[in-house]
Each structure stands twice: as C-alpha cells, then as structure tokens.
C-alpha cells in the first residue's frame, strides 16, 4: 500500500516533458498518471482548495483513449496523455464553468473554448477546473465566491490571483501543467508567489474564444507550469490563429519548444537585457517593494551577466500611469461584459417576493450573484464610460495605453528583452489586503504594462526571499510575436538558477501535511 502510494506520488513530482518521455518509453500509462494526480488532489485539496470541479471520470476516460491511441501508434501531440488542469474561466462542454462566481452557479456550457478543444484534440486529459478570483478580478483568489485557495508554501498565505487555483495546483503537484488567463498579471503574479512558471503570450497569440471575458482587449490565455520547457510545449499546443477570434493573429507562432533548450544550453552571450528603470532601481527606492524580492532579482540579473548577457537600464516613463489606465480600461470593458448576466437565460436566478418585474429579478439576481469586487468594477466601469466622462477617463486611458506601447517600442529598439521583478512582494497573508483594494491592485504594477501593450511576458522563480523564505518571481518581457525570446532567456536563467540551487525551487517547498494524512 505505502509502496504503491510512493510510486504514484513520484509521478506527480515529474514535469510535463518528463511524463511525456515516460509515456513514450512505455514506463507508465496515461491512466496511471491521471490516477496519480487524482489521488494527489484527493489527498491535498482539503488544504489547498485549488479546484472548483474535479472531473475524475472524464479525465480517466480521456486517459484511456490516449493509451489506446498510443498502442495504435497514433499520437496527437508531444503531451498526449499528460493530464492538465484548466482555469474555471474557460468554457468546457458538460463541465461547470463558474468563473468563481455565484451568478454562474450550475451553468454547464454547451460548447468548448477553442483552447479546450485543442487540449482535447491533443490528447490531454482534463483533471478539472481551477479556482480563481470571481471573473478574474483580484490578485489573491480570495474573491472567489467558493472560498480562497491556499498557497502550498504557506497555507495561511494567498496563492496570487486571479489564477491562484492553477498556480497552486501545479505548485502542490496536483497537476503537472495548467491553463490560466492573464488580464493584468493573473498568470504571472500567481506564478511568482507559488514558485512556478507562468506565461502571458502575445495578445492574439492564443484564441480567446470561450474565455469568459473580463477585459477583452487585455485578456490572454497562457500556460502555468513548473518549468519553462513545459510552458513552451503547452503554448505550442493551444496557440495559433482561430477564425472564431478575430483578434487572434495570423502569423504562425515562432518555434517555442526549440527556443527553450537553445536558451538552456546554448550561448547566452550578446543577449541584450533591459532593466526597466521604473520597475527596478526607482522602484526599490519607493515603498511597497520587498527587499528580498529585489535581492533575488538582482542575483538573477548577475547570473545572466556572468553568462554573457549585456544588461542596460531602460526607461519607460509612461509605465507610472499604467495602473491608472488599466483600472479605467479593464472595468469599462468588464462592466459591459458582465451585463449579460441578467438571470434571464442561465445561471443564478433570484426571484424576490411579491410580483416582481423582469427588472426586479435582474436586480435581485445581480445583487446576490456578484461579489463586492465585481460590483466595484462594474460601478467604476459604468462611470468611466458615461457620457460626459468618457473622454476624461476611458479616452484618456486609451491615450496612455498608446504611450505605453511607444515606450515598449523604443525600449525594444535598444534591447532584446525587458526584465523586472514580477510582483513587488512575496505571498501576503490571507485577508491582509481584502479591505484595501488599492493595496491589492498595486500587486500588478509590474505585470500590467505588458497587457496594455499586448506584448508577451513570462514569470519564473528567482529564489526565496530572505525575510520569509517564500518564492519571488523574475519577469521577462519581449516584443509582440517574439514569444520565443521569453523561452530562450527564461530557460537560460532557469538553468543557471537550478544549477546554483542544485535542483528545482519546488523541491524546497514544505511537504503538505495533507499528503500524509
């Protein structure tokens, strides 16, 4: 019994690429791998709460199909048979999709998001749907209507957000890989605070069809993994043009999977790395940036220099307005997107006493179905779009957005990639910032500019902060459509850091008590 559990849980420690290799070598089956992860979920979910829905039967059926295909020699993708977790904001036929909101309680979509179709076509069994801040609004997953997710490094701390569920699931070895979405940092910031890797691809690089929109012009689907290579593998599977998403880009993706090993093993000399003044040196002088996070960032930078990279400081003066612009554009789009939740056709319906009108039902359902943060953003966005205020708020924010894009253009004239710490601090305590929305918003200071400009970014672990022993993140940003640079530079740094640490960062995470229970 205990022997079999050990061998099963061994599979959960492997990366996606390692699992793919083991499947190819005939050392295991997809059913065995999937079951191992389902067992791990059963063991630790009580402590972590990374999932909103676990689909054991569906995942095992998909795994069995993968195994059957493998025995016929018909493989659909490099990750065929490797199980995955999917953020609950992506529609899945027959599986609940709540977006972490009460208003969608009980809704079972009749269609798959394009990325989910791609996962199914590629043979990846879907373990379940992961927890998130309601409609992706938050940086801690505390705004989920179904209770918070806990950080595997310290269960009293937040796993980041909005995609805390996907990051925690991967960090807690409940899933080898996962999909997230990133509107202002919802993949990268959870990656930073859980010691995992998260990628926000170029805007338009991955279809948004079936991603329940928070802010359409900012949202992007992306990989959540434990290694840079796994992100590249997953990115290639779900990426590419989709005729159902007009904003998805036509040019084919650059070779991403190739880029990762090239970066890890090849010559790093001559890579021009730009440190963003406004998110580095200047930031350290300001309040809110944790010394340990900045120390790990500097250390990573030094490693890149030792490996031959040229590091220069680059100013992006308009980044200081990014947060303000983001908090006008995002709620404006969100206020309009969320109007469809009127209790008339699906989801929660609250019928007040008496003889209520359709309007009364809408009002009562929206009041009961939306959480405070969602209501806050609906009000903000509705106000910002109102006639008489549009020019001053939404219009002005769009101008800032243009300027931020120009800052990036100018910076990428000088350097190949831009870098910064991913988030200003390590994971904070659950409840610490719940009553202070602005403090919560400040978490996304470094990640938001990439969303506003549509450029790709990756966060990977830079080490543990001295003050609290919790993971910090290193962010790499590249020009639009040059996502391969994220993988090249990211894999290079990952290799240098793991050599220094003598292993992966998650090896240093505390054992979860639940795992032994």
């Amino acid at each position: 019994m205990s022997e079999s559990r050990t061998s099963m849980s061994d599979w959960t420690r492997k990366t996606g690429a390692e699992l793919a290799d083991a499947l190819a070598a005939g050392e295991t089956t997809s059913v065995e791998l999937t079951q191992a992860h389902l067992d791990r979920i059963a063991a630790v979910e009580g402590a972590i709460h990374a999932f909103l829905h676990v689909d054991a039967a569906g995942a095992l059926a998909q795994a069995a199909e993968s195994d059957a295909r493998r025995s016929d020699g018909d493989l659909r993708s490099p990750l065929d048979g490797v199980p995955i977790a999917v953020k609950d904001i992506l529609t899945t036929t027959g599986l609940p999709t709540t977006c972490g909101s009460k208003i969608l309680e009980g809704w079972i979509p009749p269609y798959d998001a394009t990325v989910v179709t791609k996962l199914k076509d590629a043979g990846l069994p879907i373990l379940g749907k992961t927890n998130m801040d309601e409609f992706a609004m938050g940086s801690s997953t505390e705004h989920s209507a179904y209770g918070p997710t806990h950080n595997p490094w310290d269960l009293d701390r937040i796993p980041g957000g909005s995609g805390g569920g996907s990051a925690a699931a991967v960090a807690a070895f409940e899933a080898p890989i996962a999909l997230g979405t990133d509107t202002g940092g919802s993949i990268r910031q959870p990656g930073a605070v859980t010691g995992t890797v998260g990628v926000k691809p170029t805007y338009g690089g991955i279809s948004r069809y079936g991603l329940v929109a928070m802010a359409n012009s900012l949202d992007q689907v992306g990989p959540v993994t434990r290694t840079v290579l796994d992100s590249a593998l997953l990115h290639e599977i779900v990426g590419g043009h989709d005729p159902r998403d007009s904003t998805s880009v036509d040019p084919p993706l650059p070779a991403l999977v190739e880029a990762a090993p090239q970066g890890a093993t090849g010559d790093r000399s001559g890579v021009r790395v730009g440190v963003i003044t406004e998110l580095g040196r200047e930031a350290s002088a300001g309040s809110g940036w944790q010394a340990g996070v900045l120390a790990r960032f500097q250390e990573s930078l030094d490693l890149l220099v030792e490996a031959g990279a040229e590091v220069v400081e680059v100013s992006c003066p308009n980044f200081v307005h990014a947060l303000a612009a983001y908090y006008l554009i995002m709620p404006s789009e969100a206020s309009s997107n969320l109007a469809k939740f009127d209790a008339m056709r699906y989801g929660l319906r609250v019928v007040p006493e008496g003889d209520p009108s359709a309007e009364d039902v809408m009002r009562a359902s929206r009041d009961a179905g939306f959480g405070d943060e969602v209501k806050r953003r609906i009000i903000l966005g509705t106000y910002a779009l109102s006639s008489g205020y549009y020019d001053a708020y939404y219009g002005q924010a769009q101008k800032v957005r243009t300027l931020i894009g120009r800052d990036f253009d100018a910076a990428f004239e000088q350097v190949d990639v831009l870098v910064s710490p991913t988030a200003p601090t390590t994971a904070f305590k659950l409840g610490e910032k719940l009553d202070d929305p602005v403090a919560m918003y400040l978490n996304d200071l470094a990640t938001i500019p990439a969303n506003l400009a549509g450029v790709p970014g990756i966060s990977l672990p830079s080490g543990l902060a001295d003050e609290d022993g919790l993971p910090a993140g290193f962010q790499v940003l590249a020009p639009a459509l040059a996502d391969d640079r994220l993988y090249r530079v990211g894999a290079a740094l990952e290799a240098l850091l793991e050599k220094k640490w003598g292993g992966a960062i998650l090896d240093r995470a505390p054992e979860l008590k639940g795992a032994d229970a």
Partner: protein
Amino acid sequence: MSDTLLSFEESLEKFDPAMGLEVHVELNTNTKMFCGCPAVFGGEPNTQTCPTCLGLPGAMPAVNAKAVESAMRIGLALNCEIAEWCRFARKNYFYPDMPKNFQTSQYDEPIAFDGYLDVEIPARSGEGTETFRVDIERAHMEEDTGKSLHVGGATGRIQGADHSLVDYNRAGIPLIEIVTKPIMGSREKAPEIAKAYVAQLRELIVALGVSDARMDQGSIRADVNLSLAPAGSGGLGTRTETKNVNSLRSVERAVRYEMQRHAAILDEGGSILQETRHWQEDSGVTLSGRPKSDADDYRYFPEPDLVPVAPSREWVEELRGTLPELPREKRARLQKEWGFSDLEMRDTVGAGALGLVEETIGAGASPQAARKWWLSDMARRANEKGVDVADLGVAPTDVARVQELVDEGRINDKLARQVFDGLLAGEGTPDEIVAARGLEIVSDDGALGAAVDKAIEANPDVADKIRDGKVAAAGALIGAVMKEMRGQADAGRVRELILERLS
C-alpha cells in the same frame, strides 16, 4: 384617451415640419452578422442560434464579410463616402431580448456617410414629377435583437403581460441602419416625401438584391422623427420618434398624424415631450412609449472583440462597378418601354406597384393590362384591407396568368375578379380556381342556344323590337342570357345567336 389634432391645413399655416427618417434594413445574407447561424426568416423559435448569437459567456463575434459588402453597396448606391477605416461599437442597455445586454453596432465611425437620395414626388403643379433631395447622414452596420412575444394582457405589449417568450432566431441578423439628415422645407409634402423616400429606398434595396425588403415581415422598418417649428422660423422643435411603422401607407399616415398632434399641443401653448411613440396600425394613432429623457446613456465604446473594418479603395471601386441600374433611371427606361403616360407612371410608382407591374409584364402580360389590374383591382383590395399592394398576397405571375386566360377568351374581366377573390382566399392557382369555381366562359351553341331561346320567350316585346330592325335592343336580351349563365357566357356568340334567331 385620444389626442387632440389640429387640421392638417391649419398645422401648416402655423408650423413648419422637420423630419428625420431612420430605416433599418435586414440583409439577406446566408448567415448572421457575427456568427455562422442561418439568417433566414421563420424557423421554429430558437433553432437558428449558437453561443455567439445567444451571447453565451465566452463566445466571440466575427464579422460577416458579405454583410460588410452589402453595407458598402447600399452606401455607394446612396452616394455616400465609404469609410477607409471604421469600427464596431457596443451600445449598452438592458433588454430581455438582447442576449448580451449590449448591441454590437457602429457609433461615430459608420461604414458609409454623407450621401443623398433623390426622391421623386408628384409635382406641385400637378403635372409630372419633381425631385426632392433627401440628404443621408450615415448608413451603419449592426445586429438585430431577438423577438419578444408578450403573453397574456390585452395589448400584446409588455405592460400587463403574464410572461414573455423570446425567440433568438432574429438575434444577430445583419442590419443596416440608414439615417437621414433633418429633412426641411417639405411643408405640405412632408407625409408624401416620407412615404416616397421609404418606398424609393426600398426599391433601391430591392435593385441591389441585399434584402428581402418586406415591410410586412419587418425586413425593412422605419422610425419617423418629427418636430415642428413656428412657420418661417427656420428652427427645429422638440422631436418625437415614432417606431413600429411597418408599411409605406403608415409612414405617410404617421407623419401626418404627428404633425397634427404636435400642432395641436403647440397651438395651445403646450410643449412636446421628447419621447418614443408607437404607431398603431389599426387605429391610425401613435401612443406614447418611453420618455427619451429616461437616461439614454448607451456608454458606447469600441467593440474590443473585433478588429477595425478597413475596406481597400480597390474593393470599394470594384463594388461601385457592381451597382445595378438605379431605380430612377430604371423608371425612366421602363416608362418609355411600356409607353406609359407621366400620369400612369406616377400612379404606378405612387401605389408602390412598379415592381409588381414589371414582374407581371415579365411574366407575359401587356403593360396596360398589368397596370390595369394592379392599379384598379389590386389597389382597391389593398386599400380595403389596409395593406400595401405588395403585401396583398397576390403574385405577379398569378396576375399574368389571369390576364392570359382573359386573352384566350376563357374568362372575361368580370370572371377574372372572381379568380382574384379565389387567390386571396388561398384557393390555389388561377387555373385551379377557374376549374373549381366553374368560371370558364361557355361558348358552346347548345347551352347558349337554350338560354337564348328562354330569354326570347321571356321578353317577347324586346324580341319584336329586334325583329323590327332595332338591333340595339339586343343588349337587353344579352343581359338576360348573361344573368341566366351567371356571367359565364361568351357575350359575342350570344349576340350572334340572338340576331340569327330574330332576323
């Protein structure tokens, strides 16, 4: 409660009307504006839907290129500029039949703008026609909403209904909204110009082949904005917007009604409430809808799920090359071909029967016969039923076939009217109706001879007169025979038989 009206003449003495017409045209594309669902009329409720047109969470729109092409062709036919770059925008408001609670439309960047339509109306002199130029502000693309059916309650309106059913088959069907600039200086011709504008716009749409253009089915819908200003002031008064104007006839009547209603209020020193009103087809009045001041802040912003539409100039020129003969030119050509007088042509156009007459001629009827049936018989029937002649339910091919039967001597004009009765009653094709109703003219001498003998016997005095050489008296006997034969006798042959017997 009924509105007080000032007489039309007095209204004009005191006030000048200004109109603005908004016409929605449902395109006849195969698929909807932003998804691949069929865009056809009818179908069981909610069978032509998908995640996108149902506005399900996560679904996204993708623009129908054919709809953009149709919009551009309409714009070009209306002498508009075609935008080099334009975007869709969200118009945010709540309504149960609008799945996303915003309509994807265009706001300050329409696909077509600054055009005009020269409308022909009967000349003020009474002779021939004159042209009135209606300036077009813009033509933009948008999606239709679903359709609500309010169940229970007396009026079928949302007020007082027990519950409402929503059919989303129509949701997402491409619409082009064509908006005029304020139409000034129309004076007593205002109702006529409004009707002629919609009629001739409809003809243009038909010629372009971009819509079914059926007002009775809602594939063309007109909203009438109207305001009055003191005569000669040159100003603009407070307007009302009358919706639900679903026939050409109603356009004219609604303008006239609102002019008289506004005039009565203003004449009493009152002021006009800026509001939406609804035209009541049966009672011929407008009823107050929703006050416009009720916070119409649609919070427009560019639709982030769609990329801008940027038609190349080559495409625009290519489409300009596909424009059909414009209705005005076509009318001139047809008048010449058919040999119609100005008055005949004017009446044909005025009755909204030009296309019907054309199709009837195309199906084999002579121009005069086609005109005769549509302008006398059909127009009268349409008027009795209170519908446009095009919506009567009689097809041009049927009219042509009836005329063919007359030409063949198998029926006469009087019997033809009974065939039309049958057509309207849905009794089948003209031939089936002639057979079923036994309408064919009898020219068989046996049957006719017996009737003639009976008539002579019954009218000895008349018979004597004819014997005395007063041939004109034969008419009375022919009448008696026709009566006996229920109108189905060949009158010429009857005359011959009478004269044979009495000479």
